[in-house]
């Protein structure tokens, strides 16, 4: 199990492994939005929490197809399925590796981008907390979507279509935490809900995803 985790991390950090590109994408969204929307600080401050969450979500989304598709294409997934590792565990480990490579760095980068978008000072703590609580759910839900589409060549966009509706609750609660936190309202309720989503998807989705992979390998 840990061998799989280390392999996935090592692959991510090797050339072409895509580490850092999720971050770059996040950065680009944060830069492009002011370019498109215009530079007024008050508008930007107002939309900053939402844009940061949407950006994090898209950055996560775009690296999802790497979770299983690479292993499927080169035959590793067949071999993993016939190996002694239980598929559920493999799915969970791969989602974890995905989070370590995208979600966690995104969380750490987000405050810097908050500066670019004029995020008010009170919000930073909540920004970090909400991303920390919510991004693992993004990785796990995404792994489920990736498992569904693993047999489909370049199913990247289909994957987005399947996964984004599933991301809606996470996104809403996540952005809500920041907004409420900044205005001094009750931010703990949405944060707790975010944690609950993460916990439940981490506990149940590996089974659904493993089933989907087995079907796809058939």
């Amino acid at each position: 199990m840990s061998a799989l985790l280390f392999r996935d991390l090592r692959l991510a950090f090797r050339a072409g492994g895509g580490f850092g590109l999720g971050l770059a994408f996040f950065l680009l969204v944060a830069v492009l939005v002011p370019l498109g929307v215009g530079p007024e600080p008050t508008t930007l401050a107002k939309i900053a929490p939402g844009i940061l969450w949407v950006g994090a979500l898209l950055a996560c989304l775009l690296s999802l197809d790497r979770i299983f598709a690479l292993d499927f294409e080169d035959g590793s997934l067949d071999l993993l399925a016939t190996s002694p590792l239980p598929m559920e565990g493999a799915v969970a480990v791969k989602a974890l590796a995905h989070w370590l490579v995208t979600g966690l760095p995104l969380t750490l980068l987000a405050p810097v981008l908050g500066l670019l978008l004029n995020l008010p000072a009170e919000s930073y703590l909540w920004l970090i907390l909400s991303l920390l609580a919510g991004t693992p759910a993004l990785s796990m839900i995404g792994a489920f979507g990736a498992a569904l589409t693993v047999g489909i060549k370049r199913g990247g966009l289909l994957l987005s279509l399947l996964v984004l509706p599933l991301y809606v609750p996470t996104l809403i609660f996540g952005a809500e935490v920041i907004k409420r936190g900044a205005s001094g309202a009750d931010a703990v309720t949405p944060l707790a809900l975010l944690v609950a989503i993460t916990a439940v998807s981490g506990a149940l989705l590996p089974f659904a995803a493993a089933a989907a992979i087995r079907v796809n390998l058939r």
Partner: protein
Amino acid sequence: MSLWEYANPKKFMALSGRLLPWIVALTVLSLGIGIIWGFFFTPDDYKQGSTVKIIYIHVPAASAAINAWAVMLVASLIWIVRRHHVSALVAKAAAPVGLTFTLIALITGALWGQPMWGTWWAWDPRLTSFLIFALFYMGYIALWEAVENPDTAADLTGVLCIVGSVFALLSRYAVNFWNQGLHQGASLSLDAKENVSDVFWLPLVVCIIGFELLFLALVLIRTRSEIRLRRAQALAARERLA
């Protein structure tokens, strides 16, 4: 003989073939009566004016869209648990019908919103969750289209339908949390209660029944087409071996 016998394609074809003419006739009848009644023979609401006539398609379409998803969920569960091929095909057949109803509810709602709220679209929770619902439908249909092998597709879409249902409910809750909206409450409280009871209510009920029957008729026809195509495929496969 158990109910599951009807999951056999042949039995299903025979039975549905016999029922279908009646269902179609009933659909045409109830939908025709309901719509004509609603459009031509109901008074205007004193506050909403003639726009109240939109209710005769908006509400039936919205509730039929929700029911269609319920049918898909049940059919998916049956497929995953008991692996009856017809139920997978029912789920497949229901999706485009449900999506169309969802779009009808969205479009009529938007057209209604313009005179009532002064805007085509507002990010009201009901509206928003229905839009997300439409996205669920699209993803589901796209997955059916994208997977070549019919059994694989049935399995994958089944899993998606179950997981998606949970998240759809969660979204509904999340969206409420996010915004308090403009949309009508769960009761038919247009204005005065006595109005609702008969003048508006009766044709609405007929329309609701009509839309549900339409759903049933279309799903039966589509399921029958899918079964025929699968049979043709099976024959072609046998031919290839011979």
